[in-house]
């Protein structure tokens, strides 16, 4: 059991959880992820690490309620049954910042994808990088942790689908306008966004790192549920990733694989909403 300090809603369907997890964060690095279980019989949910404080042993996660298991996660308050991690490889820029000293780097985030972007930009700021962020969401209300990212980024470009904050449109509109300023791109968010960003940067020959979040069970290389096609070869996102070269990822395949349990998940969500009672529904 892991003590929960905070599990609160920060926007529609978006939650911030703080949990004491000493073993997880002792060697944690930006870009890695954890697997959490709300209760003993819960599903294992992979979540990228948002923040961690090695002095207080507090791990912070931001997650979006999208189905039965994340809905259940949003309802617990005292203890988290399991946090396993850190898992996966760390972000390659943060592992070897010295190799990227002369690069002009932009991070492109969509929705809750901003959560794993924050620790990377924070880490790189501490290593004297000036990093710009392009951050998009559907509407103003869904732009998260703005003060946090503004405190670590050199410049933040906001963009919303409906124009309620920042530019109107998509992150790719802003990226295309600004792309001559960058020679390395890291993008984290919905698959379709990462796909569109990668297609754009391929045109401009800008190297692009993406962080994939496919279905997983164990997260340690045992089950192969998370296999992705990278340069035509199968790779496991949990141990070979989660970060890959965006120009080598078969996104269309990955998008189809995200729907494997569509029917089963619908049933589980209905059951969970029934079990948790009226007040708990995905908005």
């Amino acid at each position, binding site marked *: 059991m892991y003590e929960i300090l905070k599990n609160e809603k920060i926007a529609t369907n978006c939650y911030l959880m703080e949990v004491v997890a000493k073993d997880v964060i*002792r060697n944690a690095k930006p870009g890695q992820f954890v697997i959490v279980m709300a209760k003993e019989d819960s*599903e294992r949910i992979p979540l990228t690490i948002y923040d961690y404080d090695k002095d207080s042993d507090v791990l912070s996660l931001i997650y979006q309620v999208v189905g039965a298991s994340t809905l259940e996660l949003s309802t617990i308050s005292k203890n988290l049954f399991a946090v396993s*991690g850190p898992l996966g490889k760390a972000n390659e820029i943060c592992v070897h910042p010295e190799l990227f000293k002369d690069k002009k780097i932009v991070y492109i985030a969509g929705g809750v994808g901003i959560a794993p972007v924050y620790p990377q930009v924070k880490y790189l700021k501490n290593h004297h990088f000036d990093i710009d962020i392009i951050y998009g969401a559907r509407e103003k209300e869904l732009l998260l942790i703005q003060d946090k990212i503004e405190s670590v980024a050199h410049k933040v470009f906001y963009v919303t689908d409906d124009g309620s904050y920042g530019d109107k449109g998509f992150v790719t509109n802003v990226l295309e306008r600004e792309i001559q300023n960058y020679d390395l791109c890291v993008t984290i968010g919905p698959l379709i966004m990462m796909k569109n960003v990668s297609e754009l940067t391929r045109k401009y020959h800008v190297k692009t790192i993406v962080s994939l979040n496919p279905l997983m*069970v164990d997260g340690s290389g*045992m089950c192969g549920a998370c296999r992705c096609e990278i340069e035509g070869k199968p790779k496991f996102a949990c*141990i070979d990733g989660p970060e890959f070269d965006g120009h080598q990822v078969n996104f269309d395949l990955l998008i189809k694989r995200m729907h494997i349990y569509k029917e089963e998940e619908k049933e589980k969500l209905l059951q969970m909403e029934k079990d948790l009672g009226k007040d708990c529904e995905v908005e």
Partner: protein
Amino acid sequence: MEDMKKIEMKTQDAPVRNHNFEEVSLGYTKKEAMDEASRCLQCKVPKCVEGCPVNIKIPEFIAALKEDNILEAYRIISESSSLSAICGRVCPQERQCEARCIRGIKGDSIAIGSLERYVSDEAFKNGYESLPKVSKINKTVAIVGSGPAGLACAYDLAKEGFDVTIYEVLHKAGGVLTYGIPEFRLPKEIVSAQIEKLEKLGVSIKTNIPIGNAITLNELQEEYDAVFIGTGAGLPRFMGIPGEDASGVFSANEILSRINLMGSFKKDAKTPIKHAKVAYVIGGGNVAMDAVRSLKRLGIDAHIMYRRSEEELPARQMEVIHAKEEEIEFHFLENPVKILVDEENNVIGMEVVDMELVEEEAGGRRGVREIKHSNHEVSCDMVVMALGTGPNHEALKESDIILTEKKLIQVENGKTSLDNVYAGGDVVTGSATVILAMEAGKKAALEIIRRYTGKYQSDK
């Protein structure tokens, strides 16, 4: 003449059990166990003991059983094996102890596995578990992985007074005993009981910790007197054929983890398992049998496809017999070359070729080759790959431990190339059996005990 036949263990009826996840074999009654024990000839030079990887004193425990002394029989077994309730159920006895039994020359061998199971279950039921008195020796060992190798190693070390900590990446201990072997073959309460026994002996089990990431091997080497790596062979293999990334293709590990570890077979489970109508499991080992029989129990029309013939099936004999009784359909000498998919990338079938056996390969198994122009199609909506597993070296990150050509950890007498690091089980041998992993765990434990206590020095 009746002595020639062994007493078969009763099972749930096949048409009933292929709809539930309760244990298939029901165990001996006392009378059945006594009758079977009385068939043992008590050989002066018992071959069965040589056939057992951990050399359980088989005639001695059977003699105690004949005298209705379960406590003594269990004590004798426990001298050699800490996981006997498990081994009685999952060891391939027909290739080990029972293969050497003198009775087997003219009739049936003694059902040693069934007797081992009976004694262990009775001992457990009656609370005969007597934990040895341990005096601590102030030496610490970290064990990476809580599968059979790690558990066996931990037990032997704890008995000698070592402070043992087991690290497990999953939320439940037991490794393949927990995530892999299904409830109907190995009830999880038996696995939990074995793990509780270890905890009572003072072994600490830390779950959710991925060694290599959370704590590196180098850090364990610093922190503990010795380290044992028993991480197994966890990485599932795929065939590399077109369509294998389709949405209905799974590794057997994934199917079994969802069912056993996450309990997806229960109606109210929170982790889903794919609904399917017709599933083909590719492979012929124990994992393939476990996967296909699990799918059958979920109401799926479940098939095995194996590229060799029935004779070469590597699975434990009893599992094949049980699978057939449960109406699993076997397709021998066939192999998929392509997974057929619809526009949404869902499986709709397989393109399959016929195979033929050729001369023996190195290792004694018949080789196999494709018959040209034999391609044909089968319909299905799920394909499960049970092709064996490779080593998973996440735990070895940032260490310079020496691996073999096959990327397995190189060991000599259980010791790796690193000074205080030992290894055993599938991570050293490639995918094998529970009992061989246990044997390796025990061997490494003995080496660690010799080195750090000076006890049990060999005569050489």
